[in-house]
């Protein structure tokens, strides 16, 4: 178990299984006691997850046991046909994409993919895409646009990979091109941040008509560790940075950056991946229904206005002599 909040519930779990064993061995009915303990476990756990600090949620969002893009693909979609390659350089394992059927509709699914073991993580580069990943994503978005099919993206990355090859092949250009492409894409786009939404590498597939976030996902301009290293001069202050950056789903809902939070089962998505997938199915389905049959030109205009409205500023009179046009 990667997340320490679970440790305190181990004792309760053990007591429940002990009771079950005793009941079976002795052939007596102890279901009331068992139910009582289960309820206690459930409510304490719910409370614990409500009380999580922002940095607890960061750790939770990164948990290796959480459902990844391909897990949701398996639970939510049928007729999956994965498509590969950017037609320029290579096929990036950190971004997967392909056709799928969702609620009777063909959709293009694109998402960052992490790995659970070392072998898979090497193939997936720990979910940190190279430029060819963003270019593959862009190619698949245009493919969806060509056939008037909606695009569903799932965000789950620490960020775009900071490496020599990534820079040589234009990481910044690849992301920038996707931002512009998505802003003008004449087909519906729905995004869900399912784990970690790491900076530009996350946004590179997330300029959408609807942006959803799993309850324990995070989305941030910089990793709390990176921010702490710069502003607090120590990565150990990541907890402070996470609080200051306001990276959780409720924070982002309040800031007007996301449209809805997808509730996770008690204990988080990894505690019950099927329940998590069920919740995502519901919320994603509702939002897709609302945008799926809209006029593409209207959609693009509304999407643009949605992002134009983001930000906060005030107005004040500049001092005399400051203007450049005098």
């Amino acid at each position, binding site marked *: 178990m990667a997340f320490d909040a679970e440790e305190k519930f181990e004792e309760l779990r053990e007591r429940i299984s002990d009771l079950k064993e005793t009941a079976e061995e002795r052939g007596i009915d102890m279901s009331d006691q068992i139910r009582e303990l289960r309820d206690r476990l459930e409510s304490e756990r719910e409370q614990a997850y409500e009380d999580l600090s922002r940095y607890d949620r960061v750790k939770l969002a990164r948990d290796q046991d959480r459902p990844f893009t391909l897990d949701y693909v398996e639970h939510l979609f049928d007729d999956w046909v994965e498509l590969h390659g950017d037609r320029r350089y290579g096929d990036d394992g950190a971004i997967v994409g392909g056709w799928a059927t969702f609620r009777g509709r063909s959709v293009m699914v694109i998402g960052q993919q992490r790995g659970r073991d070392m072998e898979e993580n090497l193939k997936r580069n720990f979910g940190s895409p190279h430029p060819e990943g963003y270019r593959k994503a862009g190619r698949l978005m245009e493919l969806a646009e060509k056939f008037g099919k909606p695009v569903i993206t799932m965000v789950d990355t620490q960020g*775009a990979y*900071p*490496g*020599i090859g*990534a*820079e*040589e092949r*234009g*990481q*910044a*250009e690849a*992301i*920038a*091109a996707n*931002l*512009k492409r*998505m*802003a*003008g894409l004449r087909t519906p786009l729905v995004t869900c941040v399912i784990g970690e939404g790491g*900076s*530009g590498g996350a*946004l*590179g597939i997330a*300029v959408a008509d609807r942006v959803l976030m799993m309850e324990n996902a995070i*989305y*941030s*301009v*910089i990793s709390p560790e*990176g*921010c702490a290293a*710069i*502003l*607090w001069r120590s990565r150990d202050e990541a907890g*402070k940075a996470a609080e*200051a*950056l*306001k*990276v959780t789903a409720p*924070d*982002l809902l309040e*800031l007007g*950056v996301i449209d809805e939070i997808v509730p996770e089962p008690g204990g988080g998505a990894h505690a019950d991946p099927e329940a998590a997938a069920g919740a995502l199915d519901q919320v994603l389905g509702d939002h897709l229904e609302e945008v799926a049959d809209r006029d593409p030109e209207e959609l693009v205009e509304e999407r*643009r206005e949605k*992002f*134009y409205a*983001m*930000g*906060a*500023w*005030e*107005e*004040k*009179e*500049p*001092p005399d*002599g*400051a*203007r*450049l*046009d005098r």
Partner: protein
Amino acid sequence: MSWFKKPKQKLSSEQKKELPEDVWDKCDECGEILYSRRLAENRYVCPECDHHFRIPAAGHIDNLTDDGLEEEFDLELSSADPLDFEDSRPYPKRIRQAEEDVGPGDAVRTGRGEIDGRSVHVGAMDFRFIGGSMGSVVGEKVRRLATSALDAGDPLIIVSASGGARMQEGILSLMQMAKTAAALEQIDEAGLPYVSILTHPTTGGVTASYAMLGDVILAEPGALIGFAGPRVIKQTIGQDLPEGFQRSEFLLEHGMIDRIVPRPEMKEAVSLLLHHMT
């Protein structure tokens, strides 16, 4: 250098001539002692080693346009503090300090001017304002500049100098990347030219949005240009970076920019491009 001492004033060619002969600066790169007047005349490029001194937004605008800005836009926009962000000091204090040191307008100045008599919309970033970082004000000003260019049918020129997105505005800073890219999509759709000029340094969220979206991308010589900063890359891969990595010349070699143009020739280069693209 007068731009740094009197940041709130634009340096016209008349003012440059007023600089006395005996004021001098030292080149950070080659160590040569240079007369300030000579340096100003050479657009703050070292005549000895070609090092491009970092200059304020006003300097770039002055360098590119016939006579500065005819109209400056949105100078009254000032950063709010949407997250109540505080590290070693509260974000609003940082902003006030930067406004005092650099001037109003946050890290980008925008407006309308002329290049060889052709009306253009131009923006220039100022690295001195919190590292040229992009928060809501920078994103909004760039977006409004693009929208105004769209209405006027003017070419768009943006000079970038930025360390990336502004951490103190959190996710709202990240969203400015989407906002500015969306605005440039409209410029593209309208068939208007956008020339992006990269100066030292241009990294992070600005590079990964409007800086790399130019129809034509020019860079000053020797500028650091990249997505991730060299320190982060070095830390991640655990090895030294190759000589010249992420410099303008490296980007040209890898097909990421169109041309490297020394600052004194920048106006002429842009003017010629606009001749072809309008």
